[in-house]
């Protein structure tokens, strides 16, 4: 089991007022699975994703990532989990604008202290996997939206993570590049990476093995 969430609650504080965002969410995911999360805006999808991505800790409940109890992890251990086990893809790509595609993809490897030569080789391989071998020296502003998102995906997989988290990865793309990106996720999943994806689009969600609905911070599984 790559993910095991048991009774996760998350509250935010607005001043002194407690605002509950997630209520008692329990959810599991097997290795190699491809799961889509759907739900209306403000339902708590991103909040759940941040907890799963080890960016945030739940207010209540247990969360195991690849068998590891996250509540016992220090800040540095959480960083290392993000570095080695998880790949993040965001709606707005979040590429560093002044760096080439290659440098953007190499970045997680520098945090993992991979030597320079190996770093380059692995980044080039990751860019080849997302079909961008011809664009390695391009800056983000010289790339299309779909290409930028593929650079972001290359960056997410360069450290060979077990789990790929994508928060509305096609939200900012036209339908054609969106379809390309979806194909890419499917291919990566077939190569063995578990994929958890937030989306609004039912067509997009149809690619997944399994679909999960969130409404008002509560989870409803759907076949």
């Amino acid at each position, binding site marked *: 089991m790559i993910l095991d969430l048991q009774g996760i609650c998350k509250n935010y504080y607005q001043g002194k007022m407690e605002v509950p965002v997630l209520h008692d969410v329990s959810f599991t995911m097997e290795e190699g699975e491809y799961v889509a999360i759907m739900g209306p805006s403000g339902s708590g999808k991103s909040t759940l994703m*941040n907890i799963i991505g080890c*960016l945030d800790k739940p207010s209540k409940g247990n969360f195991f990532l690849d068998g590891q109890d996250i509540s016992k992890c220090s800040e540095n251990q959480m*960083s290392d989990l993000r*570095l080695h086990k998880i790949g993040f893809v965001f709606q707005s790509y*979040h590429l*560093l604008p002044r760096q080439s595609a290659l440098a953007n993809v190499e970045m*997680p490897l520098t*945090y993992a202290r991979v030597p320079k030569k190996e770093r380059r080789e692995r980044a080039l391989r990751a860019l080849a996997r997302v079909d961008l071998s011809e664009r390695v020296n391009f800056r983000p502003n010289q790339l299309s939206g779909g290409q930028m998102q593929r650079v972001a995906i290359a960056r*997410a997989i360069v450290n060979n993570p077990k789990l790929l988290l994508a928060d509305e990865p096609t939200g900012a793309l036209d339908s054609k590049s969106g379809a390309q990106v979806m194909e890419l996720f499917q291919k990566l999943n077939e190569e063995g990476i578990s994929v958890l994806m937030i989306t609004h689009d039912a067509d997009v969600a149809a690619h997944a093995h399994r679909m999960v609905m969130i409404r008002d911070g509560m989870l409803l599984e759907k076949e």
Partner: protein
Amino acid sequence: MFENLRLAIQGIWSHKMRSFLTMLGIIIGIASIIAIVSTIQGTSEQIKEDLIGAGLNSVNITLYDGDGEVGFYGDSNSATPVITEDQKRKVRKLENVVNATFYYSRSWSNVYYLDKSFSSGTVLGVDQEYLGTKGYVVQTGRGFVERDYKQFNKVALVDTNVVETLFLGENPIGKVLEIEQQPFTIVGIITQPDDYLPKMNSISDYEEMMNNTAGSILIPDKCWPIPYRFDEPQNVIIRADSTDSMSSAGKSTADILNANIDNQTNQTNYSYKADDIMEKVRSMQKLSESTSQQLIWIASISLLVGGIGVMNIMLVSVTERTSEIGLKKAIGARKKTILWQFLTEASMLTSFGGLIGVLSGIGLSKMVSKLTGTPSAISIPAIIGSVVFSMLIGVIFGLMPSVKAANLNPIDALRSE
């Protein structure tokens, strides 16, 4: 590490104008410190060279009345001590004394060439050791010889300053000077080789050099009573065999000379004292150092202001790059990594500033030295210290913004776009 450096340089370079303006405070501060230190150090080295002389190691032994130098010898005062031949011999035999000279000296006396007055010059009554001890050489003509002393020859030597001011460059040899109405024939011109000039033997020589370059006229000491009539105290200069033995040789000489002074019978308070030149060098250097320290404190204020500017810009930079920081944390950068990235950037910024400051400071001190004629010495420790110190400023003032960056919550940071 290198990655951080690369990122830092990139960050600085991508905002050239802003980075430069941020550095400006550091640049100005470091430049003024370097300029001050170089100028002061140059001056202090010059003072030392002037006072000690280039390898002459000469020490003045002067007669004091109480605490004051016995200066003007116009009056006959039978009580003033006279140095005997025996004492002179003893001084010359001292272990660390290479050479010793005993001479009379008089400023503002009546000297004429034809009807041209030369009262601003100095008249000296010298023994045969004088030229050697002072490092003079005969440029033209001849020096004093045995027979000048034996026969009380009324001959004189003049230095190059006299040739210039009194004879306006004309050859003075064979010309007759009137010293207190007594005719003296010039037989030679003396000069100090360039590397001895303008080396001084005492603070008063230094002042004299500054105030009075009219020149010196030398006559044999045996002839001194001819124009000046009275026996009077002599000045003493010895040359020690090394800079280190200057103080002890001076003291031993003073002891020998003091042995003959009978203060008790005469109800006087005379004594010979050796100038401790090293002591004076040190105190003059200390004076210039303390001045420079005060100036450096003022320059440090500019560094403080510069540091605050760096802090301000780094805070702006952290705010601007919130989303970048959030992303880096999301893909696995540790807190420490972010902290180091920003600290590196801040200290690179200030080190660059320091480096530019050092270069401008050197330029500035060279310019000051050209304009005012004061020497300047480039101090390597000051340069290294400045760059290290400006780096430190970056670390100190960059710390707060860097900690802020490192503590950003990645979720909020990612959301900020």
